[in-house]
């Protein structure tokens, strides 16, 4: 799409001060659990484990939907977005995780004259809570609620689609999620409501389906539906993913016009995710994934690839090592 809405496997970056705070604050208690990777999967990180690493995500498109009309644009060529940054995830308890990220984004168009932009985008923070886990039939059913906040960290330009690095809108999201696991086979389903704040642009008027004599742009809210199924073993995780982002309002790009932040951006993507967590060295995690857009409106038909390298810090054991040294 012209701009990726909030999605799973965003490259993640933890602000130094926050990470430092977390390390100091939670070095007391031991715990063990699997690696918590994102705000939208059913994997929780264990108590007092802190996972940090680097994510890289590249996505590109040649075709896009102008409203519902699919077209290419030889004056843009291939539009690509590269994102990189550390991410962090902390297990306050095995039922309560905090996840955060802050991607650095760079955009580029392979044809035409428009210059790509780059910069730090939005700081996102999620609180992930698993209040219910119980045996149902042959497997375990877990229920999650996830609350998210996201806010731009710089005054980057939103009104420069498809090459702006973000939309400047602040988000609050509420997600309900259910996971059912039988042995190593799992299904996770979630629905999210994303409340988006209005944004301000650098010009004093703009046309949507009528003229607006203001620099403030109404940003419609959005919903996200996500379904993932697959194998969840100790060392390997493989999942097939289906994700549907729907903007609740907004307008279509008119014929041969440029896109605008308050367009009705919808997209349905499918793809695969994998995770590899070898026994040795303990704590190392590699993740990867690939997704493609199967349907869309006012968005690019993106294909994306991602890879991440993480390490789980057992905050408690560090403490004991320290005390031993003393």
């Amino acid at each position, binding site marked *: 799409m012209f701009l990726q809405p909030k999605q799973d496997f965003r490259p993640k970056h933890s602000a130094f001060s926050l990470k430092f705070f977390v390390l100091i604050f939670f070095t007391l208690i031991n715990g063990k659990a699997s690696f918590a990777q994102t705000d939208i999967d059913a994997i929780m990180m264990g108590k007092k484990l802190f996972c940090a690493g680097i994510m890289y995500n590249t996505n590109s498109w040649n075709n896009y939907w102008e409203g519902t009309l699919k077209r290419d644009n*030889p*004056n843009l060529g291939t539009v690509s977005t590269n994102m990189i940054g550390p991410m962090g995830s902390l297990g*306050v*308890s095995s039922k*309560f995780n*905090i996840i955060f990220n802050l991607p650095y984004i760079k955009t580029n168009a392979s*044809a*035409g*004259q*428009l*210059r*790509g932009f780059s910069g730090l985008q939005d700081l996102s923070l999620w*609180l992930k*809570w698993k209040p219910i886990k119980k045996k149902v039939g042959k497997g375990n059913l877990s229920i999650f609620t996830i*609350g998210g*906040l996201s806010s731009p960290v710089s*005054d980057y*330009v939103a*009104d*420069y689609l498809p090459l702006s690095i973000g939309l400047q809108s*602040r988000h*609050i999201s509420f997600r309900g999620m259910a996971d059912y696991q039988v042995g190593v086979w799992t299904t996770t389903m979630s629905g999210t409501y994303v*409340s988006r*704040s*209005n944004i301000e*642009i*650098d*010009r*004093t*008027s*703009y*046309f949507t389906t*009528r*003229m*607006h*004599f*203001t620099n*403030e742009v*109404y*940003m419609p809210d959005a919903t996200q539906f996500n379904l993932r199924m697959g194998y969840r073993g100790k060392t390997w995780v493989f999942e097939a993913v289906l994700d549907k982002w729907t903007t609740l309002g907004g307008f279509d790009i*008119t*014929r*041969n*016009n*440029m896109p605008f932040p308050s367009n009705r951006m919808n997209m349905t993507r499918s793809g695969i995710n994998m995770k590899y967590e070898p026994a040795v060295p303990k704590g190392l995690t590699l993740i990867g994934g690939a997704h493609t857009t199967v349907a869309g409106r006012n968005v690019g038909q993106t294909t994306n690839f991602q890879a991440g390298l993480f390490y789980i810090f057992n905050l408690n054991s560090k403490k004991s090592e320290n005390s031993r040294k003393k």
Partner: protein
Amino acid sequence: MKKLLIKLSVATCLLFLAACSKEIEEANLLSPALNPVQTDANAGSWKPILLNSANEIFVPAPIGTTSPDYILQINEVKSWQDKMTDADRKMVRYWSSGAVLRWNEILRELVAKYNLPPYQNEDGTYPIPNANNPLAYPFFPFSNPPYAARAYAYVSAAQFDGLIAAYYYKDRFKRQAPYQIDQKITPLVNKSNLPSYPSEDAVIIGATVKLLKLLFPGEQDYIQSKAEEHRIARLMAGANVRDELEAGEALGKAVALKYVQRARTDRTEASVGIVNGQDLWKEFEQAVIQRGETPWVSQETPKRPPMLPYFGKVSPLLFDSLTVVTRLRAAAPPSTKSEAFQKELDEVMHYSKNPTRERIRIVHFWADGIGTYTPPGHWNAIAAEHMIPLNLSEVRWARNFALLNMSLMDAAIVCWDTKFTYYNPRPSQVNPEIKTLTGLPNFPAYVSGHSTFSGAAATVLGHLIPEKASSFNRMALEASNSRLYGAIHYRSDCEVGLELGTKVGNYAIQRARTDGAN
């Protein structure tokens, strides 16, 4: 700990929500009701533009205010006032800010809606919008900056001429406003001693609707619905009775006819430069090659013919076509082979490679590219913003917009004449490494259109509102520089464009000094 975190997060969420009320207050709805410091009751003696005299068009004398027919009309106003809803009150308030202002906003909206370049044909050629089939793609018109400048000029000038005639007849017939004749009518506009026959609002409706039919033929329904809203608003406001509207609208239409006739013969139609599939405009390219210079080449894929290459030959309003060529056309830009050119190219590259947030803001604030009301529209918006606090009469609003927009149309003409005389390449054509911060316009570089428009507008507005002159000049300079910062123009395009615009603006000032309005 967990509970604390949850509480904290809930609190943060609420703060977030509280900070983002999504109601948007648009600036144009805040403009107050017209309340002129001076009624300009003598405007009937001002010098019109295309009208030969204020009474060239006959307006019949109104019926007496004691006649049964007039009483009936007064009763119509009362019945409108009796059944007003909140939405009606809002509508009356909206139109009370001034007919010239509101129709200027509507025109800006139409320009923005139609300012989209046609998508290419299968064979890589581009379709040309057809005025006789405006609703078939590509929609007519493509209201690009020259087209828009002309539209603003004709509408504003016709409104001005119409109002001069209206004020002439107002003074002659001296019919009082309905709320002065019948005390039971509550005026929902500011009271005025200006006679109300014919209605100045209706003159503007008549003139504008007639011209918009020509300029935006696909928008008839929208324009008619706005006109009807405006008429009803005047009746509900108790500002006019029916025959004042009818007389005014007929007068406005008759005045607009003069402009329609001019528009049909002002050579705009030929400005496309393509006749029966023949690219006449290639002659500009040939001329440059013969001079041994590098001609402009479209950087779009597929290559798009340049925007209105013969617009420089359109008949100007403030001077004649000969003046465009002999007195206004700018001297040649630096040769692409010269050292001076290389220096300018390097400067563009510098701005392309090193954008700051402030420069990006400037580029985007002034970009006024596709899907916007264009630079002339932006200067109309600036003019409106600065005229609102002055509490001007309707006729002075019209005069100021007419002077501004005549200068903007003529600025487009002289700028396009210069552009197609030298037909020089854009920076990113000469050096494809130069990436731009805004859309690259599809026509030659020298001189900058934004700079020419801004030079003209700032000059005219500085004359009309002298206390703001230096502020207008600063804005014009920023608008001009924005094209260099955006890496789509050389410095000389901007500087010479500003000078050229200033010269055009001075012609409008000459007119302003002798039109009897001072």
